[in-house]
């Protein structure tokens, strides 16, 4: 199951990166696309990493707490960057690159 989640995460990575690169010319679209993509990707990767780290642990909780806390913090921080960054087009490009790193969480 965790492998499937990671595979899905990496798939979203490339689709998101390509999409955001294509729409960079329209900065407002890029800003909102970056924002929504970060939120969606944060949700997917929270599940992915939670399941990845959950295997073999004695805890019976649904989510791995470290993955949950850090991925929420990272997602909120990236959402803020998407909203407040002075250059929306660059933000979209950089965040598209950052998908791989968010996938780690």
């Amino acid at each position, binding site marked *: 199951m965790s492998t499937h989640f990671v595979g899905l995460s990496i798939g979203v990575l490339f689709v998101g990166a390509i999409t955001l690169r294509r729409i960079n010319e329209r900065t407002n679209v890029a800003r909102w696309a970056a924002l929504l993509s970060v939120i969606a990707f944060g949700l997917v990767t929270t599940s992915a990493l939670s399941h990845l780290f959950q*295997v073999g642990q004695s805890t019976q909780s649904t989510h791995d707490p470290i993955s949950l806390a*850090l991925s929420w913090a990272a997602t909120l921080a990236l959402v803020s960057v998407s909203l407040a960054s002075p250059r929306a087009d660059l933000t979209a490009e950089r965040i598209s690159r950052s998908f791989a790193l968010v996938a780690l969480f």
Partner: protein
Amino acid sequence: MQRTELLALLAALSVLPLASRGRVVVLPIVGTAFLSAGLFWLARAGVPLFRPRELAPPGAVALVLLGAWMRIGLFPFHGYVPVLFERSHPSKAAVAFVANPGMLILMRVLTESAWDLGISGKVLMVVAAISGLYAAFLCIGQSDLLRAVGFQAVASTSMIVAGLCSREEAGAFGAILHATGSGLFVTGLALVAWGVKARLGTSPGTATPGIASAAPHAAAAFLLFGLAAAGFPGTLGFVSEELLLHGVIEHHPVTGTLIVLTTALSAIAMLRLFFLVFYGAPNTRGRSAAFAPTVPIDLFPREKLAFGALLVVIFGLGVMPAPALSILHSVTDNSALHHQQSGETP
């Protein structure tokens, strides 16, 4: 594919945001390569990441620790962090700081599997604490706001690593909470600084005339994020630093003292920068230089929304930390560190 191999692959992918056109940050990329190589070595040796260190090849353990140390940017590999904040795009620096694979791996091996590093662990703890003090000291002397935020980031991560290396349950608990909180307030500080830089055309620093009257919301946001970084009561920074210090200082008084000094210097640095950048350096007559922009330079609504969301979380969890504490309690309750200290069998 094993979990450790998956982690190694994902850690290797994490260099993608750091590689950009024209400027490549070498140190974290090399660190990530070491980290991934160490994880692959562990996987190939048939030793999962969450097993006691004694079962793992020493070379793989050394590679994982060295890679994590470089990727996090602790002394003597700290130089790239302020440069990243000063010269690169906000998203690049923010991502490198808040979603750091080196920190994630250290948290895993030092809490859940409780790698007993022996005397090396104690040395790493003291070096991390000194790294934080050094970064906070350098932060005071900075004339560039973005660079100062970078040093504040190094000070925060150093305290987190010192707490993790202490092998104390409360210290590790506080460190995980501080990692969450510092990701928020460092991002907030950096975004305010970048916003001011975008408006002034130059990075705000001690030579900038005071802009608080022209940008009062930006000034307030910077002050509130700065207070969180300084561990002011009522903020998430206070809760996490209190927990971290409580866990460390009882059995490691020297490290605890270094952490206290780091917090104090961080507070001095943040307040000094706030007054210098937003109220201006006093001129020869003892008055701050005036600044009269021809266009509005205060925060846009979308920026207020972004900073407001960060501040709600920072102050909300600072006043009512129970939700965050209850989530993270299960980490330490199920960690090998907890079982070791309580004498239970995991």
